[in-house]
């Protein structure tokens, strides 16, 4: 026990979070707040990625990801506790992603988390991955506390979702999501069409450096006036991918060179335009002057720049957690559980499973009544 001055410092619960919904094995360790108003403290954000193994397939292969999680979990947990300077015996609660995500990948984390909780005889919190992305924001020690309500745009290789967050632990509403490919997937597929390696996001960025984003007007999915009734906040990127492929084919058929930089820049602009446009439309319609960005695709510089510029013009404040917390990670899962514990929520029962399509309204899974969480 750390001693300062005359007695032990009050300490919040030590939470270990496990995230295995896609191709990152994330272990996070967070010291939850010890009293209302205090901040949670990030002690470790350890990530083992199987991305390299997926590169030759051009996208995440579920079975490859699941095998990699099984091999990565134990070393990742060991690294995380070492980095946090704690022991597993000190952990007060275990948290795990129950969904949404790849079923086989999620199950590895769920199986491990349950066994770890039983072996440590500590409570288990099963939480929602997407809400976890929002919770990443509360670990940013340099940012003022998250204000509600806020619109959240979560963009990654696995999901593209627009959420209205009235409260992190009790009220998250899905405004819209992709009806086909995730934005990150679209980057991967278009990179492939352009003969660029996986993952596509950084490659498209590199290729787009000297490109003209207005050179080609690629379609903005679900953005027509006729889409507003049913799909105002939904996204579609598969038509865009097809449009890029067709544009290149026509160019080649005509024996003309393909301007890769212009194609990359114009494609990226179409994605960014629709993401930012719909997010700010949601802010306007709901009268919410706050937008939170999350997910791995937020690493895309052009997306951040356009979001910041257009949000400022619209009078909307943008929050972007540190990029290491935007990609999938276990720290955000631990943070969400720490927040639930701080709100006095009971842990989950041991009966839940992996839910690949867990709705965002289900912030915690299999919550049990009574039973309080002890703190160290």
């Amino acid at each position, binding site marked *: 026990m750390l001693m300062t001055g005359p007695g032990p410092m009050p300490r919040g619960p030590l939470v270990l979070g496990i995230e295995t919904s896609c191709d990152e094995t994330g272990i996070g360790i967070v010291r939850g707040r010890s009293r209302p108003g205090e901040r949670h403290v990030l002690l470790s954000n350890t990530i083992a990625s199987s991305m390299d193994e997926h590169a030759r397939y051009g996208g995440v292969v579920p079975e490859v990801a699941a095998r990699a999680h099984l091999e990565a979990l134990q070393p990742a947990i060991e690294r995380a506790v070492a980095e946090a300077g704690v022991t597993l015996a000190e952990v007060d609660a275990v948290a795990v992603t129950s969904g949404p995500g790849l079923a086989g990948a*999620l199950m590895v984390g769920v199986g491990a988390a349950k066994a770890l909780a039983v072996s440590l005889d500590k409570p288990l919190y099963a939480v929602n991955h997407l809400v976890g992305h929002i919770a990443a924001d509360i670990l940013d020690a340099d940012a003022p506390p998250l204000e509600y309500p806020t619109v959240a745009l979560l963009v990654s290789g696995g999901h593209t979702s627009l959420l209205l967050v009235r409260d992190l632990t009790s009220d998250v509403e899905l405004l819209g999501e992709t009806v086909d490919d995730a934005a990150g997937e679209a980057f991967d597929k278009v990179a492939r069409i*352009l003969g660029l390696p996986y993952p596509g996001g950084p490659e498209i960025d590199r290729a787009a450096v000297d490109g003209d984003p207005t050179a080609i007007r690629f379609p903005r999915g679900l953005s027509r006036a006729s889409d507003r009734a049913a799909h105002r906040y939904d996204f579609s990127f598969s038509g865009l991918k097809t449009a890029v492929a067709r544009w290149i084919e026509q160019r080649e058929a005509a024996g003309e060179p393909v301007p890769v930089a212009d194609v990359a820049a114009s494609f990226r602009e179409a994605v960014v335009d629709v993401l930012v446009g719909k997010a700010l439309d949601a802010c306007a319609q709901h009268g919410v002057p706050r937008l939170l960005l999350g997910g791995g695709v937020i690493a895309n510089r052009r997306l951040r720049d356009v979001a910041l510029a257009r949000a400022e013009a619209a009078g909307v404040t943008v929050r972007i957690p540190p990029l290491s917390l935007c990609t999938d990670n276990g720290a955000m899962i631990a943070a969400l559980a720490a927040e639930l514990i701080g709100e006095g929520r009971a842990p989950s029962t041991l009966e839940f499973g992996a839910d690949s399509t867990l709705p965002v309204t289900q912030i915690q899974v299999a919550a049990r009544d009574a039973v309080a969480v002890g703190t160290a």
Partner: protein
Amino acid sequence: MILAVDTSLGSTVAIVEPDGAVRAVARSENTLGHAEVIGTLLQRALADAGVSPADVTHVAAGMGPGAFTGLRIGIAAARAFALGRGIPVVPVPGHVAAALAHLDAGATAPFAVVTDARRRENAVTVFDGRDANGLPRRVAGPELRANDVDLAADPLLSVAAGPASDGARGGARTAEVVPVTEIPADALGRVAASMLASGWAPTGELAETEPLYLRSPDVTVGHAPKKVRA
């Protein structure tokens, strides 16, 4: 005290004493839903045996063969439980546990443990008698076989007459086919107990403890990336 976990077919957890005495068995025959039941099975086995997690000294993990997804959940759970207590994992091939149960039931002739490997295939391991430690002696497999072929005609099941045979010396015998629908976690724990009693120690080599998937990830490398030149 040994905690044994297997989710290669159904889900089973057992608590076994170092001398092989079985203290508790908890099971779910559902061949799906491994992730749902694993935590409760662990808790129930411990409670039924009247032991606390701190009493567990080793975790025996059923390493397959089995369907990918289910198999992994038990191994992940076994490793995480062991990590939580700072104790070693003893990796045990599931078919060895099934074979031990079969031998204990009185089998004398060579036999083949056959389990469903999904996708119209079975996983097959052939055993003949016991080794010096009393554990089933594996003579062939595990290998995959289509589930609609006659295993009796398969060369894999042809066992040469050896020390364990008393009859057809010099010839070959065909192993009896023993279909198994659940790896008994109690037998898994007893295999581990026997391994430990005969001096088994963890080497720290992960390769030695890899799951027996028997199949490569079901994926093909897509078309070569289209070449586009500016």
